[in-house]
């Protein structure tokens, strides 16, 4: 009892110290101008962010407006508009004119001004199998995609409802083609990520010139077709009707349209890349506030339920792909990790301590670091590049094996060591052969061993970072539940995201339920039969 009181007093002391610190900070804040700072949430596109222009604009604006802090949400245009609809952003910088007009018409935004342009280009591998190089002038875009489709060359779509993706769909429509087939892939990622994947896979894609220029070294892709009004890329600023900080949004909007911003836009990239990447425009607002704000559509939970009940094909595809990939990874990780754990647990050798420490370190591998390592291993420039495994299910399985293998080895090791050390000796004392003794040892730890496997499964099926890096979230190949949830959230398809989330939770529940049953039965039921 005395100990308890000491502990709780200790906690109380710490808490009051924290409270004091907090009060001090608040007091200090009240004395200065710090508390005057308000946040403006700027929803923007990944192409604008990946080029680096947005950082320069924001830094310059904040320097002149110390009372405002700009929080940038760099997402696809589709999700940026969705953020605006929900009132989660104050101002939008987007580049999908048709969608923007609809957004304003529906009353979600106002004062839309097109303030800047650059252009889209069709980029691709330098050997140019579809022969789209030199296509230029009016209609270059539709002709280029038609040539790519005709040659069956690989084309990588953003597939994320972004402004770039919307423009790409428009090109296919103009060319009169509904793109489908093995050659047409969807990355479900931002501009930068899609560029990296396209370069690795030798695919064509539609990209804005600025991002391609900035990431050109990484991407190793060439501009093959450009020009014409179809490939014009217009950026607009739109004020959000339901924003939380309309006053700050208006000041930022005016600044973006002002002279200082124009200079930054015109000068961006000139020094570094030797050319102007964006051109500032002057235009009047093209529409007045629309009618009353419309509702947000179907409740996403209801939509998720409908998708699940109707066994939606997309949801099913992603779920089964997840199970197949993580199941294979788990099988391999168990086949490697468990014998390794058994071996280390049962043998004595000189380097045992560092080996054990290494295995336990495997438990703490940050998944994204594993993803990066596997990426570097499999990328074209990497040692296993010639196998062309990157962005394939095999690559995802490999990353998951690297994640789950040490996990299973470590838990196996701990499970075997939790059994009294002389269990095998005692089994030998009853007449067991060496193998029988080992089997009796494993048997005694089997509940923990099953737990190890189940925990490994939970770890890989719910992992997102490494899968995204090495799998690329390609539809029909490496798009699993977690990466699909990321993408669908970005697209604003909350129903699909929630449906997948429910399935993921359901799988976790089933696995844990089975574990719990097994555990309680392990105590009651015969272990030796």
């Amino acid at each position, binding site marked *: 009892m005395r100990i308890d009181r000491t502990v709780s007093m200790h906690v109380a002391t710490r808490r009051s110290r924290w409270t004091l610190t907090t009060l001090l900070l608040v007091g200090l804040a009240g004395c200065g101008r710090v508390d005057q700072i308000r946040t403006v949430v700027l929803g923007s596109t990944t192409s604008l962010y990946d080029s680096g222009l947005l950082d320069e604009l924001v830094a310059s604006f904040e320097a002149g407006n110390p009372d405002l802090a700009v929080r940038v949400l760099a997402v696809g245009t589709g999700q940026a508009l969705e953020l605006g609809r929900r009132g989660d952003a104050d101002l939008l910088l987007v580049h999908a004119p048709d969608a923007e007009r609809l957004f304003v018409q529906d009353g979600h935004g106002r004062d839309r001004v097109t303030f800047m342009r650059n252009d889209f280009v069709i980029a691709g591998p330098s050997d140019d199998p579809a022969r789209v190089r030199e296509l230029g002038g009016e209609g270059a875009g539709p002709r280029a995609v038609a040539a790519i489709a005709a040659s069956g060359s690989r084309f990588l779509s953003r597939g994320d409802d972004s402004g770039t993706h919307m423009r790409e769909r428009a090109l296919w429509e103009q060319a009169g083609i509904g793109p489908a087939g093995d050659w047409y892939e969807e990355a479900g990622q931002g501009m930068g990520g899609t560029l990296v994947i396209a370069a690795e896979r030798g695919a064509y894609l539609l990209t804005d010139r600025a991002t391609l220029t900035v990431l050109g070294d990484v991407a190793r892709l060439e501009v093959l077709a450009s020009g014409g009004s179809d490939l014009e890329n217009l950026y607009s600023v739109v004020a959000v009707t339901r924003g939380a900080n309309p006053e700050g949004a208006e000041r930022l909007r005016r600044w973006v349209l002002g002279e200082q911003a124009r200079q930054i836009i015109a000068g961006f990239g000139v020094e570094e890349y030797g050319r102007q990447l964006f051109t500032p425009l002057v235009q009047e607002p093209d529409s007045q506030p629309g009618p009353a704000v419309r509702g947000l559509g179907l409740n996403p939970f209801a939509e998720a339920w409908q998708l699940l009940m109707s066994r939606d094909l997309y949801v099913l595809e992603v779920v089964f792909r997840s199970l197949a990939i993580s199941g294979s990874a788990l099988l391999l990780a168990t086949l490697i990790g468990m014998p390794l754990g058994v071996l280390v647990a049962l043998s004595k050798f000189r380097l045992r301590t560092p080996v054990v420490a290494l295995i336990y370190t495997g438990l703490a591998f940050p998944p994204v670091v594993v993803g990066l390592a596997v990426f570097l291993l499999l990328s074209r420039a990497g040692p296993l590049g010639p196998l062309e495994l990157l962005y394939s299910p095999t690559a995802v399985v490999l990353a998951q094996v690297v994640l789950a293998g040490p996990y299973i080895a470590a838990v196996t090791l701990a499970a075997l060591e939790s059994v009294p050390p002389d269990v095998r000796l*005692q089994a*030998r*004392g*009853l*007449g067991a*052969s060496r193998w029988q003794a080992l089997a009796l040892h494993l048997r*005694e730890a089997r509940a923990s061993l099953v737990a190890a496997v189940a925990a490994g499964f939970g770890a890989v099926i719910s992992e997102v970072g490494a899968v995204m890096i090495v799998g690329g979230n390609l539809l029909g190949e490496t798009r699993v539940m977690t990466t699909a949830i990321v993408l669908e959230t970005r697209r604003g398809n909350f129903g699909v995201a929630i449906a997948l989330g429910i399935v993921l939770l359901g799988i976790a529940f089933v696995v844990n339920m089975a574990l719990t049953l097994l555990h309680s039965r392990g105590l*009651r*039921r015969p272990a*030796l039969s």
Partner: protein
Amino acid sequence: MSNRLNARGELLTGTGLRVRVGDGLLLDVPYIGLRSGELFAVLGPNGAGKSTLMRVMAMLQKPDSGSVSLGSATGAEAADRLRRTSAFVFQRPHLWAGTVRENIELGLRLRRASPERRRALAEEAAAQLGVAHLLARSSRTLSGGEAQRTAVARALAVEPEILFLDEPTANLDIDVRGALLEDLDRVARAGSMTIVMATHERSEAFMLADQVAVLRDGRVVQSGPPAELFENPIDSFIAAVTGAELSFLATVREELDGVLRVESHGFEFTVVGRAPLGARVRVAYRPEDLFLALSELRASPRNRFRARVLQVQDAGSLLRVRLEGAGTWVAVITRGAWEELALDIGSEVWVHAKATALQAFPV
């Protein structure tokens, strides 16, 4: 399958056994031999190397040098045969998850016995150790005594030619310990089984064993039948371990309800033990089990007699008092008791000893 004996008529022999730990020797036994059918006790204080000797003899642990042979067989052949014809009960036996029945059948299962045979032998062994009513219970729900009995039954179920018991009673309460010892005694007498038992309890060794080896610092200091160790302890360590100096010879006069009336030097004592009428027995006691009073007490101890203080020795915080009266005796008492009773050389006292404090072993 029966193991043949070697030329000396011994079943299991160890030669030149050495087990090292660091720079020292954990075990150093030049020769040890077990005869078929005998109960061989390895007696010694904790840390003397009893468990190591047991494991080496059972071929569960390889000695750093030396060898163990089974009859005339040596090496892998001996190890194989011993594995099949022996069973080892550890000091802290491990019961596998599952029922008591499954645990008792485990050794038979490992030997691929038929289900009928497993069933029959397991039930017989369980009955012998008094755990038949626990067969369906989970091994995780047993008390210490029940678990120990289950472990012994598990070993007996395989009908071993050689049974190794490492401190089978060390973790048991005193009453449970007595019951288990009686069971072991019955088992030992019933069959032709050879039993090797490690213990630090003198009384266990002398009550049950045909041969006793006294182990100290990894060496066998003396070995032989219990009587020989009593009669001719080679040094004071043996004398202390066997309790030779704290014992006397007596003759059994009467047997009542498990206690014996024995006679020595014309005095009669009530003691515990097992021996036929008229047999010669050695009665041993611990000096701390005697208590002294200035007058005879009407109390539970069955043995009360007058004695005179002959000598007193300092033994740390305690005093070692030599007494004469109905033979010579040694009692250990506190300095406080000595002063309170105002004792001195030549003082007259009453010695009291419970029957269970005096243990008779057949000579």
